[in-house]
């Protein structure tokens, strides 16, 4: 119901819209005034009319005309612009980003809003396309344009109204560009729409409307693009006819919302078990222990890390977590494999009878009791089923076509269905359609998931592109970047535009003769003897140090950090890109930068012998490294030398070197040792992870050796001062911005995390245990756990303890109370990241906040707003985690490549025991592998002792063996390629 327009002034009229907002069970009648204007241009360079009507925006800038005067041509040679409908964008965003097609695209505002309501990630990708201007995408604000705004008709559904609005845009463009705008040849306006009905209506109105398939066929390179067209509901009809299976339908939103409110349904993130893809857990705040979800019916089409709604199952279905290993890859080999769902269908139907909310609440109470209960009942865990999915975690997936699913002879061009096994083994295989399945065999391919109907056993997806041969370094590297959601594409033009125009020739301006008030505030520290110490061949030097003995016997110590925020101003495209990447990612043979190279390796990098801007923290420390005074300043420094850890160590150790620089380094070393001791005394943890380093043969860049990282004193020298700087800065910014200071915390591990480990210790190593009262107690108890017969045991325990720890996280200070700021691992009360702004976005924020705190410049609003900070923090926490996983996966891949050439026998340690296999860690390579019972010996003789964490079996040679957790075993390590998943894995065999 929209009343008529009323003209307010020339070029502006007003109308109103009426609708019902139904949220949280409320129904509100809403009336909105809606303003229409006549100065919205068509953004086409070919247009002669629009230049007269445009008006500058609030910043005084005129709108940019982006659509090309000379757009791409169809097969028949006609130039065309494309108008997209919502369903096209939602399903083919991958294709829109493809550089082979889709140039000069008009997105009506109606469509943009519909996309935003349906999927925020796709909306953001679309905005990215519009912003980058590379593909000439424009948003046409038809809803605000006088000539294209339409009223909703009586009894017209909102979808029909929007479809009509989109058609109106198409016909408007057509008349606007091609009638009386005569300086160019006609440009065809094509409306792309997958809704047949809408196309019919459009064609009857004289609009050129095509389906995606028809359009791609009209393109000169259409043949190559056909496979990239995503699956729609019709594509897989041939499968759906025979109803392979049926999953329960999801509950309606109304029911889910009420259920969550009255406490009968719960929301959480699904975590699929690493060892059993048919078992997942959902951590729900109402219960102390996660809810178990067992079997594919109960998992009900959810993917790992989807945000799901669960409902408890009756008590007689509560279970102990399975001790059996089930991998999809093993099942997937045979497509007809029966669902290993031990629960069975009848069970599910039993729960479908009406159970009232009252009964459910009683059940929930019992579940709370069960999760709190001690000892005897403790193993029984409440189970649940998934009844709704609030947010899919769907993204691009990397996988390979299952060879068994490619059927027989190649019958020409018709597309065939086949299965794609994903690299992430926690996910099911995906059904795709392609004509080139043979061609893609043996390649890493990227696919995207489109849907999972309730009558299909597998989700449907479509091919996106091929990365190359399996096991080629490029394909594997790209695959792991994609798998960990690392943005690795080169920086867009609008990002690079934010860099200084001087480029590599940029120099520090003269401090004396300047009008820039900020430059005047900089302190000149070029006389200080600053040097940097980094890994060899480091090009992005974040930090440099200096030390000087003062006349009063104290020391002046300075930490100088690259002044990245001088170049990365808030709210620029460069800043947004940095914020979204969150961190640089380090792979064995590659680095994915957070900021463009120019900044990271030159302008910001504190290179020796040249002037650089820095953010300096200068302390006065006494003989025992206690802080007497601290100052923060933006500065200009000149590094005297860039050392590698080894060279710095050699220079310090070389008694003959007595110059001032070496002396100051000796001072730093002395103070750093004191700082470290203070930290350890306070209870800082010394945990271990099996970190290895891969040596690359520099000529061929083939990995040829694996080595465990070793640490020098100079490593810890730099580390100690960086910690000190981080702590000092954290205090300062928390003081200035108590609600939004960017901090980092490390929560103490909950006792339940160590339950299993302590139980294992108790059973296997009597007398040893890990105490958890404080980090100090934990550190001491770890020190006490020594096995005189096995020097590695202590390290093994540290590795296993590390896995029980909570992950450290970034947070804005307002989210927690001060006592919870504590960094457990470092044993300090407050901490942040300040020292690596080139490669971490947290540090960039900390820099800006510190600059604000010392009055150097005003702090941007986005770092003073708690909600915005929450968003930033959420993203960088995720990016940080992904970067770590990607780095580890890269090492794992290269270790696999090294092992390919040398099969050998190594020492390993059993770290987990199942009733049908054991997990062994091999310290030499830092790898762990599963050895299944079949490979250990006779399956029938196996006997798993739950209390002793040991597995009894008769091995292949007929000897009886007992293997338990913490046992040292000899394993034969070789690398094998799994033919189904295409993944090279370490294959371990017990000797």
């Amino acid at each position: 119901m929209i009343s008529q327009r009323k003209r307010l002034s020339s070029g502006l009229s007003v109308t109103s819209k009426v609708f019902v907002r139904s949220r949280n069970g409320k129904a509100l009648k809403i009336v909105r005034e809606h303003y229409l204007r006549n100065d919205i241009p068509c953004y086409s360079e070919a247009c002669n009319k629009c230049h007269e009507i445009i008006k500058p925006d609030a910043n005084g800038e005129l709108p940019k005309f982006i659509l090309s005067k000379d757009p791409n041509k169809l097969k028949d040679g006609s130039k065309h612009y494309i108008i997209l409908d919502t369903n096209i964008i939602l399903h083919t965003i991958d294709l829109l980003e493809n550089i082979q097609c889709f140039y000069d695209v008009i997105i009506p505002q109606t469509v943009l809003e519909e996309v935003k309501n349906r999927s925020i990630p796709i909306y953001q990708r679309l905005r990215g396309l519009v912003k980058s201007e590379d593909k000439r995408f424009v948003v046409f604000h038809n809803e605000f344009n006088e000539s294209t705004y339409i009223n909703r008709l009586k009894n017209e559904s909102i979808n029909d109204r929007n479809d009509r609005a989109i058609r109106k845009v198409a016909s408007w463009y057509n008349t606007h560009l091609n009638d009386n705008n005569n300086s160019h040849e006609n440009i065809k306006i094509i409306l792309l729409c997958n809704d047949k009905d809408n196309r019919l209506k459009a064609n009857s109105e004289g609009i050129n409307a095509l389906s995606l398939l028809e359009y791609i066929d009209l393109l000169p390179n259409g043949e190559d693009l056909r496979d990239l067209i995503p699956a729609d509901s019709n594509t897989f009809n041939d499968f759906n006819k025979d109803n392979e299976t049926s999953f329960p339908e999801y509950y309606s939103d109304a029911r889910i919302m009420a259920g969550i409110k009255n406490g009968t349904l719960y929301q959480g993130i699904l975590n699929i078990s690493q060892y059993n893809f048919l078992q997942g857990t959902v951590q729900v705040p109402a219960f102390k222990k996660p809810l178990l979800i067992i079997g594919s019916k109960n998992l009900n089409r959810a993917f790992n890390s989807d945000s799901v709604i669960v409902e408890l199952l009756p008590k007689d279905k509560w279970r102990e977590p399975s001790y059996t290993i089930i991998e999809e890859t093993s099942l997937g080999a045979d497509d007809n494999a029966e669902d290993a769902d031990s629960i069975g269908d009848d069970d599910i139907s039993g729960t479908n009878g009406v159970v009232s909310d009252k009964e459910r609440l009683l059940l929930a109470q019992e579940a709370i009791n069960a999760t709190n209960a001690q000892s005897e009942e403790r193993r029984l865990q409440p189970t649940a089923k998934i009844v709704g999915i609030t947010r899919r975690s769907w993204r691009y997936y990397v996988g390979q076509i299952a060879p068994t699913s490619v059927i027989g002879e190649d019958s020409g061009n018709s597309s065939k269905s086949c299965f794609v096994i994903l690299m992430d083994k926690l996910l099911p295989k995906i059904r795709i359609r392609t004509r080139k399945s043979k061609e893609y065999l043996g390649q890493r391919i990227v696919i995207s998931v489109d849907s999972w109907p309730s009558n299909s056993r597998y989700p449907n997806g479509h091919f996106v592109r091929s990365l190359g041969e399996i096991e080629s370094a490029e394909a594997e590297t790209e695959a792991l970047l994609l798998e960990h959601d690392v943005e690795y594409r080169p920086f867009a033009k609008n990002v690079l535009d934010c860099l200084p125009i001087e480029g590599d020739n940029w120099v520090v301006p003269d401090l004396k003769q300047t009008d820039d008030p900020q430059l005047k505030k900089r302190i000149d520290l070029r006389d200080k003897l600053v040097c940097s110490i980094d890994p060899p061949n480091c090009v992005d030097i974040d930090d440099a140090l200096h030390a000087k003995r003062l006349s009063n016997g104290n020391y002046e110590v300075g930490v100088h950090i690259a002044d990245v925020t001088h170049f990365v101003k808030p709210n620029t495209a460069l800043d947004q890109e940095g914020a979204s990447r969150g961190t640089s990612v380090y792979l064995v043979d590659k680095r994915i930068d957070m900021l463009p190279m120019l900044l990271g390796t030159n302008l910001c990098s504190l290179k020796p012998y040249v002037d650089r801007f820095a953010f300096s923290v200068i302390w006065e420390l006494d003989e025992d490294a206690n802080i007497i005074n601290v100052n923060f300043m933006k500065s200009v420094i000149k590094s005297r030398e860039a050392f590698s850890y080894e060279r710095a160590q050699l220079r310090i150790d070389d008694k003959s070197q007595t110059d001032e620089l070496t002396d100051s380094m000796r001072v730093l070393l002395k103070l750093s040792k004191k700082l470290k001791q203070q930290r350890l005394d306070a209870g800082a943890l010394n945990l271990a992870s099996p970190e290895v380093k891969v040596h690359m043969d520099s000529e061929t860049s083939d990995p040829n050796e694996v080595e465990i990282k070793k640490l020098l004193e100079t490593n810890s020298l730099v580390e100690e001062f960086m910690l000190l700087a981080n702590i000092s800065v954290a205090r300062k910014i928390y003081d200035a911005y108590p609600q939004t200071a960017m901090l980092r915390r490390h929560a103490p591990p909950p006792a339940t995390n160590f339950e299993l480990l302590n139980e294992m210790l108790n059973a296997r190593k009597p007398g040893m245990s890990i105490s958890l009262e404080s980090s100090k107690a934990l550190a001491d108890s770890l020190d006490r756990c020594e096995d005189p017969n096995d020097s590695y045991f202590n390290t093994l325990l540290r590795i296993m303890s590390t896995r029980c720890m909570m992950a450290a996280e970034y947070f804005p200070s307002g989210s927690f109370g001060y006592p919870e700021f504590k960094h457990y691992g470092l044993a300090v009360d407050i901490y942040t990241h300040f020292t690596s702004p080139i490669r971490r976005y947290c540090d960039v924020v900390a820099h800006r906040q510190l600059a604000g705190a010392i009055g150097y410049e005003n702090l941007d609003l986005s770092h003073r707003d708690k909600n915005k900070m929450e968003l930033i923090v959420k993203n960088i926490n995720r990016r940080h985690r992904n970067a770590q996983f990607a780095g580890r996966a890269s090492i794992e891949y290269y270790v696999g490549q090294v092992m390919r050439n040398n099969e050998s026998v190594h020492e390993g340690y059993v770290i987990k025991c199942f009733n049908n296999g054991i997990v062994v860690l091999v310290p030499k390579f830092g790898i762990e592998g599963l050895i299944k019972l079949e490979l250990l010996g006779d399956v029938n003789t196996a006997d798993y002792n739950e209390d002793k964490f040991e597995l009894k079996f008769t091995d292949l040679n007929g000897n009886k063996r007992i293997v338990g957790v913490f046992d040292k075993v000899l394993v034969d390590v070789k690398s094998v390629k799994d033919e189904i998943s295409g993944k090279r894995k370490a294959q371990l065999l017990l000797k």
Partner: protein
Amino acid sequence: MILSPAERAYLYESLVQKPAIRPGARSDHQFRPLEAKTGFLPNSNGSARIRLNDGSECIISVKSKVVVTRGESSLIEVDIDVPGFRDDSNFVSNLKFSLTNLLITKFPVEYLRLTSKYSFKLFIDCIVISHSSYPLSLISLTSYLALKTTRLPLLTSEVNDEEIEEQPTFSDDWDNAKYIHPTFQPPIFITLGVIGENLLFDPSIEEEQVLENGLILSFYKDKVITPIINMNLATNSNNSNFKGLNQKLIIQSINLCNKYCPAIIKALDTLIEQDDENDDTDNHIF
């Protein structure tokens, strides 16, 4: 005192005539001409305005809210605002009580039920912008129009939430909103003046000054219902003519109302229909 003793005497004499001679040449069962408009407040679920030719004017807005039925003592809340009177004055509280009481006892609440747990609650807000005679029937007729034109958002979720709770969700299209019920006719009040043997419908302010008694009858579903109230309608002056009520007249008034009120209801319904037809051309009264 708006009439002089001579005027009072004259008016009294005319009105006790059989048949009564009313100022404005009205017959005894005739209402004053009125002008009405519905559905003009964009943010309300229903709205109505009635203006009389003497300048009396009342605007009513009806708004709805989804509530948990169990938590509400009543699904209808009435608020009346009369300029010049405090909200806690006898005048306003009497009006409010009468209207609330009538609606609560007679309103078919089942029409407001959404599911077994949820209902709509109606908030009826009246402003009497100006009035001369006792405004209860003016308010009541306006509320009739407002309630008749009130539309409630269309429920799209399950109606049965006895066993498994659902949160009500509604269609976002205002055009899908439904009237309370197609056959629903809100109850109304009719004021009658008693003078001699005569019963006068809708007495004007001058008539009120000389009435011997006043009657307020409620009418619902084609017949007179309780409450039937008798009161002095000339609230702002002391009426020297006021006297006891002959009980025969009560029976007579009920008969009269039963005879003439259906015509009033019909007239109001016609008004709404005409308003609907005009809807497309002009939606605003201002």
